[in-house]
């Protein structure tokens, strides 16, 4: 009997050892979207696509996993680089022997030249404006690339990092597939694209030839589930190993309390800003804009969103971005003063303004809090609630007197300042981006800072620009909302997650999944 037991036990052990060995490590995560967009890093800037790019592609340099700080930029496809004294000529020395997925051969300087040229071409790229200062990109030999700039830019390493246009694609694959590249993207990353089921999922498989070593995890399925409760439920039942969370205190607490989840709260903070349309009366009067600024209570907003996921910010550029001005002087919460200003401007009985807002809770909920705060100071906001993409179109048509907008951008002050506050970016113009306020008081500082070689001077210009924007009350920066994900304790990312420009916990070759 004992013998039998022992045999049974050893057989059991042997088989379980065998099954662990054979058991493929398959990780399933869900993000908040209805489908993948176009899986081409030069085309799509959509949140849900970024995490795929972060696993499939590499740049010349990269932000170390778990960080989005410019100080943590490290070699990726380039092993080393040097720059000319004026900062206009950059030479990158490529790593040798890096293979593209799907047998597309070795990555060489030709692929880098092709990729950066493609990223700069508005016909093939959604991020071409980042590369307007690129005078030329040349291959000096198979493993050396030289970039020449027409004018200095704030962060060259930033635009050749593993973020959007900096991702290197296989020239041969992109040429062969043409417009279909986005349904079969070919990169050099730890995971290779395997399958796309529209409206359902994207599947990635481990790239055994990855130059940093083969990944521990065999495959990743990224499911697109737009309903937060459906994600939460499927996570609870163990169908999902990792999910995009809801950016609320309550959610973080509930998830943490289950004891079966690790909640990651990380950078970048998406800054929520109330842009005030100065081209639309009564906001053409600065006193009315100042009244709005005095009526807003940031502390209350942060308390509403929850201190674990939100933090107040008074500067137009988010915290953690290179050039953020932490010492900006701003108009403090003072509803009495707001009423006085309105009366001075000729509105003793207050004002009523129409405001378009998306139906999505992440903006709609704080807008309702703002509505109540403003009403207390005599500013009545009539909300026109719209379907999300209709709202995006409407605010770009310049029809809303105030626009509450949330965004995370490349973490250098220039990006934020240019897109939201440079007069070229004013909405409803041929060069429009997202300047909803018609702000034009900081153009000079923004432009000068771009090519300023002296770092201190550059920082001073950016600080100056932010102060000018706050003084003019182009907008009222409110609070930042951090990124939130939950993962099963079985998932070990293999790095400390403090920030992610991919807006999600990227799985690397070192990440593991316990059984």
């Amino acid at each position, binding site marked *: 009997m004992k013998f039998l037991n022992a045999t049974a036990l050893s057989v059991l052990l042997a088989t379980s050892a065998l099954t662990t060995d054979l058991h493929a490590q398959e990780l399933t995560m869900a993000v908040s979207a209805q489908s993948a*967009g*176009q899986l081409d890093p030069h085309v799509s*800037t959509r949140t849900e*696509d970024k995490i795929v790019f972060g696993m499939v592609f590499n740049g010349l340099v990269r932000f170390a996993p778990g960080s989005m700080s410019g100080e943590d930029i490290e070699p990726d496809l380039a092993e080393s680089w040097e720059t000319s004294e004026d900062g206009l000529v950059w030479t990158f020395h490529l790593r040798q022997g890096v293979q593209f997925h799907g047998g597309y051969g070795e990555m060489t300087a030709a692929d880098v030249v092709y990729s950066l040229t493609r990223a700069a071409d508005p*016909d093939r790229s959604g991020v071409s404006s980042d590369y307007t200062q690129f005078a030329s990109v040349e291959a000096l030999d198979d493993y050396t690339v030289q970039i020449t700039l027409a004018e200095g830019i704030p962060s060259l390493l930033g635009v050749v990092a593993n973020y959007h246009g900096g991702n290197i694609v296989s020239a041969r694959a992109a040429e062969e597939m043409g417009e279909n590249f986005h349904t079969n993207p070919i990169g050099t990353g730890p995971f290779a694209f395997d399958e796309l089921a*529209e*409206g359902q999922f994207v599947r990635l498989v481990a790239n055994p030839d990855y130059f940093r070593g083969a990944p521990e995890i065999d495959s990743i399925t990224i499911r697109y589930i737009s309903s937060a409760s459906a994600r939460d439920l499927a996570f609870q039942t163990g169908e999902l190993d990792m999910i995009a969370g809801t950016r609320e205190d309550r959610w973080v607490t509930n998830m943490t309390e289950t004891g079966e989840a690790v909640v990651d709260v990380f950078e970048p903070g998406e800054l929520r800003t109330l842009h005030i349309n100065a081209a639309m009366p009564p906001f053409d009067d600065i006193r009315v804009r100042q009244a709005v600024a005095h009526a807003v209570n940031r502390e209350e907003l942060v308390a509403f969103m929850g201190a674990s996921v939100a933090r107040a910010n008074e500067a137009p550029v988010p915290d953690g971005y290179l050039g953020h001005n932490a010492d900006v002087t701003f108009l403090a919460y003072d509803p009495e003063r707001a009423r006085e200003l309105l009366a001075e401007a000729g509105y003793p009985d207050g004002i009523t303004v129409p405001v378009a807002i998306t139906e999505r809770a992440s903006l709609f909920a704080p807008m309702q809090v703002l509505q109540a705060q403003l009403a207390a100071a005599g500013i009545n906001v009539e909300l026109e609630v719209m379907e999300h993409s209709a709202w*995006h*179109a409407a605010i770009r048509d310049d029809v809303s007197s105030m626009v509450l907008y949330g965004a995370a951008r490349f973490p250098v002050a220039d990006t934020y300042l240019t897109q939201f506050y440079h007069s070229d970016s004013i909405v409803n113009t041929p060069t429009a981006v997202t300047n909803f306020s018609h702000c034009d008081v900081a153009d000079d500082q923004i432009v000068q800072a771009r090519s300023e070689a002296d770092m201190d001077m550059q920082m001073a210009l950016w600080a100056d620009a932010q102060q000018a924007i706050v003084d003019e009350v182009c907008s009222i920066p409110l609070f930042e909302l951090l990124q939130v994900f939950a993962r099963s304790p079985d998932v070990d990312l293999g790095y400390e997650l403090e920030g992610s420009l991919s807006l999600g916990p990227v799985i690397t070759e070192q990440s593991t999944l316990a059984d």
Partner: protein
Amino acid sequence: MAGFILRRLLSTIPTLLGVLTIVFVMIRVAPGDPALAILGDNASQEALDAFRERMGLNDPMWVQYLDFLRGIARGSLGESMISGTPVLTSILEVLPYTLELALGAVFFGVVIGTPLGIMAALKRNGWLDYLLRVVSLVGLSFPAFLTAILLILWLAIDWRLFPVISTPTGGIGDRLYNLFLPALSLGLIMVAYVMRTARSAMLDVLGEDYIRTARAKGAPMRRLFLHHALRNALIPIVTVIGLYFGLMIGNAVLTEIIFNRPGLGKLIVLALNQRDYSTLQGLMVFSAFLVVMVNLLTDIAYGLVDPRVKLK
């Protein structure tokens, strides 16, 4: 019969054309921008413009309309603005999942609804009848998404019998397992419809003279019921199934979203949110065609169940 089908098909052309025009105009009147939806909210203006130009969105509306009609006339539903895949391919890819779901729902509806309805008719005004009538009223008033959520809570979360996300892949066993919850939640509405119809149809038939005659002749209850009554009661039930099969495809939208199942409904919502004009148009044309076909098949089914119905 062939002539009947051909005439019916021809008569659908004006209907389809009307649907096409309405859809074409409505989605363009609705605010929103496919370029923005695809490229993301911080895409540069020049990239957005280049995209619109490439997709022909800068052409005058009537040019776009003619292009669209020309495509349809050639039998092409066009290509998705987002993925570039032919719309018909996307539809055919997910159609089996929606059909599977609608069939599953009809299955539950018929299998549960018919016997209950007949039982209610046989025990007319008894407690069972009252109970079933109340239940079916509740069933009719329950929105599909609510039943779906309740079923998920009980069967997937509390008892962990079925998955929360319904993934229709794998072998037939896996597929049925994944289909069970969505089909049941959708089928419960169908149960209510079928039950009410079956009850009243059965009551009608049971009141007919020939039933009284058969009864007077001393026909056994079993034979009376199976041979004389049931077959005649089936006609309205078949109509309801045909009618509601179309409705099930419509209701499948919500069910598919709640269970995260691929299908026509999910495709429609996706295309709507992304302002993927070509996919939406193609889907609407296809759905209209589907409804017409189901109606046609229902008419044909009449002929099979009831020889008195002549298909001319």
